[in-house]
């Protein structure tokens, strides 16, 4: 549904050329909710501007719903934009229009007749649960209500794709959850494809099926949540499943194990816990669980555990044993390692979060 291939956008600055996007590939299947994360300056905004054809890319292709955007003229781009619903961080409603008139705005732009507009607006306001606030002006609505109007407006022209640019960044935790639930609900009901730009880990956790991490204009990590979270040394996993960095030197050799499993309620197997029990027997040693995080994302459980092996146990043996059971396992260059690597690990653990914001 959304297909971005080798997208490059180069800006000319005084100091030379700056590549805001440097060969981005991004493919989102119909009906999927895809998160795009990255710190500010990673290229998120430029990507959005290219997807809405506000910005012309330097090279590469942007296809939405089968239509190539990069080769369109002004009128064509305008028509293409009506097939894309856009939800903005600051909503950007028209202050002198009522909620209903704001929802009707894209229809008005598209030249839809008044009676058809009325019917569609009523329908959309009901979808977002604001029928009783139809006549209210944006100033009379709460932040969450405003964003609901924004979502209704984005859906007005029945778009195939919903682009959400930091839709919850200006909202509190409870409202954020409600808005995300609404976005998910809209996807389930209307089958619209959603691209969600965010810097909040909780947003990815709440609604995304798949995710792309941008760094310096490039795709640093990409894939569905299960793949990304269980990948070897994944930056996203480190942010979404944070474990406190080891700060006390101990007698243990440290391993970090990532796993994805079906939700227990769904009758899935408890691969990880079984594997640990088996490991203890296999090594005939006491395995300590030193830290970990387990979260339910969507219908799946994801976890990262830090376990400590006593000096008597063979580390390579344990790693091979766990990997054989489908668990992503890596050796942590922890307190037992040299001073240099310790410093590196700490830096990696504290500063280098995918969102540029310490979440621990």
């Amino acid at each position, binding site marked *: 549904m959304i297909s971005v291939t080798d997208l490059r956008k180069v800006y000319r600055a005084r100091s030379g050329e700056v590549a805001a996007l440097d060969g981005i590939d991004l493919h989102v299947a119909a009906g999927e909710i895809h998160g795009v994360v990255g710190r500010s300056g990673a290229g998120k905004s430029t990507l959005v501007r290219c997807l*809405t054809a*506000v910005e012309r890319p330097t090279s590469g292709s942007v296809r939405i719903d089968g239509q190539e955007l990069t080769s369109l003229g002004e009128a064509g781009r*305008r*028509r293409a*934009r*009506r097939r*894309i619903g*856009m939800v*903005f961080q*600051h909503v*950007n*409603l*028209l*202050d*002198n*229009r009522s909620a209903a008139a704001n929802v009707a*705005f*894209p229809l*008005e*732009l*598209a030249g839809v007749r008044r009676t058809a507009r009325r019917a569609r607006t009523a329908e959309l306001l009901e979808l977002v649960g604001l029928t009783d606030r139809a006549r209210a*002006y*944006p*100033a009379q609505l709460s932040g969450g209500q405003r964003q609901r109007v924004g979502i209704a*407006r984005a859906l007005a*022209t029945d778009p195939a794709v919903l682009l959400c640019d930091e839709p919850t960044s200006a909202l509190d935790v409870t409202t954020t959850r409600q808005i995300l639930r609404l976005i998910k609900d809209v996807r389930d009901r209307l089958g619209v494809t959603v691209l969600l730009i965010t810097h909040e880990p909780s947003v990815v956790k709440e609604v995304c099926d798949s995710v792309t991490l941008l760094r310096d204009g490039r795709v640093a990590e990409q894939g569905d949540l299960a793949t990304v979270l269980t990948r070897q040394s994944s930056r996203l996993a480190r942010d979404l499943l944070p474990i406190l960095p080891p700060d006390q030197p101990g007698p243990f050799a440290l391993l970090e194990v990532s796993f994805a499993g079906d939700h227990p309620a769904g009758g899935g197997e408890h691969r990880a816990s079984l594997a640990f029990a088996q490991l203890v027997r296999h090594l005939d040693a006491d395995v300590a669980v030193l830290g970990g995080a387990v979260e339910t994302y969507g219908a799946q459980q994801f976890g990262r555990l830090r376990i400590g092996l006593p000096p008597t146990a063979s580390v390579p043996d344990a790693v091979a044993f766990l990997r054989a059971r489908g668990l992503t396992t890596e050796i942590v260059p922890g307190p037992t390692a040299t001073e240099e690597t310790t410093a590196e690990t700490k830096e990696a653990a504290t500063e280098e979060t995918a969102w540029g914001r310490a979440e621990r």
Partner: protein
Amino acid sequence: MSGGQVGVATFAPVAEAQALGAFDNRVINERLPEAALETIQMVGFSSLFTLFLGLPLGLLLHVSSPTGLRPSFLVHRALGLVVNVGRSLPFLILLIAVIPFTRFVVGTNIGPEAAIVPLTLGAAPFFARLVENAAREVDPDTVEAAVVMGASRMQVVTKVLVPEALPSIISGFTTTIVTIVSYSAMAGSVGGGGLGYLAVSYGYNRFQTDVMVVTVIVLVAFVQIIQLTGDFAARRLDHR
């Protein structure tokens, strides 16, 4: 204008005239209503033409500005120059300078109809600047949002810029009308008719202080009504 000078010095006669219950001056009783009507006519038509001229001009100034919808250095500079020339000329000089043009348009340079031409030319650039400022106050993110939703430039102007800036535009228009009222008195004094003419030719030249006082009162009343109406309209239309 000499009206202020004399008016300030003669407030005592107001009470005197009120005590008498009526004015026993034929100029006030017979010429004043007619002069007031002429002023209303001058101000009304000039305001209307100022609106038609100044609104597009102001919007064009904004749209062609470097941060506008369609930046054009040349258009912006050219329009800016026109507006600045119009604004920098003292009205009295403009009034006289455009006499040939006034004659060409109206056929004469005497009377209320003729005054409409310099009044419009004097007020439109002023109003255009106010419109430009009002349009600039509209959140650029809101404008870009409309573009992203598929609005054409014309749609952005008519459906976003003007409606969102409307309260400010109305405030600006109110200020402009008040300015036109004061200009109209000046135009009147040099042959335009209306209250200005009455004040100068009777109140000042013929030393009929009561005429001057009543004219001042009527003008103040006009301005009050215009300002209050404008403020009310701007408030009603502002939903921010």
